[in-house]
């Protein structure tokens, strides 16, 4: 393919550069938090926020540019899925960062985690993807939208879970000393996971309606459906355990990380492992 024709790439690279700026200042802020007074970090937080916001806006532009170029939304190829995930994860985390000051130090975990996708997309071909006939369906939008909220809320919860695990190490405690105690961070993390559970449920419902229209069955245990259901079950079981038994915040944090890793593999592994219908191009 002729990469010169992929007009969304400059916007994508600019968006990644903005995320990189936010990441650098998040790490710098965490480092400074060990010795500096909390109020002196406000300027740093503004740069993180503005960097993330600029990244989101530039990625929205990149998606729009690609949409115009190839004639359909970012629903088919891995390049498109990662680009839209970078954008949606950025939107939700930036809003959380803005509205909930107590979770801002978690940016030092969340932003580098997003760089897994940021680096991955650099190695993918932006070639135009064919739009499958079964994707001309409004339920696809609902399914994808709910899925993005699920993953984004899981990411915010994962950032907070990462804080709980990292500050168990004496050397890293200073990074997060501006944050409340473990019990409060744990409570906030699980509230995001509860939101994630609701959106995961909605994603499964919308996906089933779409599958019924697209392939004449609402559920067929294909690779992505099964992984997604297992992820839902895992999250449901974790919520059950946490509400039924006394679970130490760090153990609960570990569960969140496992759930997020499973979700990540479901999103970016299963559809490209399987040749089943859910892969799209049939």
């Amino acid at each position, binding site marked *: 393919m002729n990469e010169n024709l992929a007009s969304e790439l400059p916007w994508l690279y600019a968006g990644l550069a903005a995320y990189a700026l936010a990441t650098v200042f998040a790490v710098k802020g965490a480092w400074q938090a060990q010795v500096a007074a*909390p109020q002196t970090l406000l300027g740093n937080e503004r740069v993180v926020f503005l960097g993330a916001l600029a990244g989101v806006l530039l990625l929205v532009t990149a998606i729009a540019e690609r949409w115009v170029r190839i004639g359909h939304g970012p629903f088919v190829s891995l390049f498109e899925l990662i680009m839209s995930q970078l954008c949606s994860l950025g939107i939700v985390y930036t809003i959380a960062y803005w509205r909930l000051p*107590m979770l801002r130090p978690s940016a030092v975990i969340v932003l580098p985690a997003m760089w897994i996708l940021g680096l991955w997309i650099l190695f993918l071909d932006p070639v135009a993807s064919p739009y499958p*006939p079964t994707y001309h369906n409004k339920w696809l939008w609902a399914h994808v939208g709910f899925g993005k909220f699920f993953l984004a809320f899981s990411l915010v919860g994962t950032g907070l879970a990462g804080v709980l695990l990292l500050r168990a190490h004496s050397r890293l405690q200073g990074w997060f000393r501006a944050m409340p105690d473990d019990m409060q961070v744990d409570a906030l993390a699980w509230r995001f996971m509860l939101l994630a559970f609701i959106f995961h449920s909605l994603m499964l*419902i919308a996906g089933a309606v779409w599958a019924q229209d697209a392939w*004449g*069955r609402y559920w067929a245990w294909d690779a992505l459906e099964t992984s997604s*259901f*297992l992820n839902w079950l895992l999250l449901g079981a974790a919520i059950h355990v946490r509400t039924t038994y006394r679970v130490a915040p760090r153990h609960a944090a570990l569960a969140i990380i496992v759930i997020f890793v499973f979700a990540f593999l479901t999103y970016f592994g299963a559809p490209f492992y399987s040749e089943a219908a859910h892969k799209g191009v049939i």
Partner: protein
Amino acid sequence: MSSPRLTLFGMAMLAVGAALSYDNPAGTSVWVLVVPMGFLSLNLLAAVIHNPRIHQRGGLLVFHLCLLGIVLLAAFGRLTRLDAHTELVEGTAFDKDNLLDVRQGPLHRTGLGRIEFVQGPYTVDYAPGMVRGLTHSEVLIPSAHGWRHLDVGDDRPLVMNGYRFYTTFNKGFAVVLSWLPAGGGNSIRGTVNMPAYPLYDFRQANRWQPREGEEIRFWLELETGLTDQHAWTLAPSKAQAELIVKSGEQRVVLGPGQHVRLAGGVLTFERLSSWMGYKIFYDPTINWLFFTAIIGVFGLASHFWQKLRQPDWQPTAKRDRIVESLSGRTVT
């Protein structure tokens, strides 16, 4: 029975059952899912009755009852479902006795006899590289004002009497033939379906054994404009064709309207036609499943909303009294 430990055990069993079904439900026993779901349903029912943490919280109660409802509806759906395929030649009516690959639940009571529609022409768009695009299949259904034309295809099934007819990639050409037996008798007319097109464009062949004479073999030579270099539309009504007929040592090429005298009678190639393969799906529970699931999620959301409004996670740390929000307002 309502023990949370049993709930977790049931969830673990269900996870194992789902993992065993992964990408291979047809090759896995349905019991790996039925047993844990049955177990979890009993556990859930006991919990709803005995556990005040569930039955005293409206939203949570609604969610769990809906989960139970989903399991029961899914089970009933499996018992009453029908999955099948059919191939319909242009101009012919749906025939309930002409189904393929039928799989149905033991409680399915067929209503296919009340379904009436006639297959019309279809088109299928292809992007460069032979990537299939939108299918437009015209069907005619009876109405109070005569026949009504409907365009179905891909994610727009024909829904009649609860049965859903989906177009599939499986479609192709058919030849309309008539046969006049050499020994006298009535002429018969019928169609021979060729293999799926363009999937098997290289072997558009089939055979037919008349009651009299030798088996007749057919090859169809098509001119459809097929190309993988550019966008292309498969439109059988615009295709040109010649039919190669072979019977014994006799071989002849026929155009539409031409005939040939064979050992057992006279064969006429009347015209080229097309057929469309449909997947048929019936499950009386799908709308109920949808509404039950939505109500369940709303119940859960309502329960979580109560929790989210509790202030126990609101920060009390010293820092938050002095941090200004990024919009410039002071957070207190």
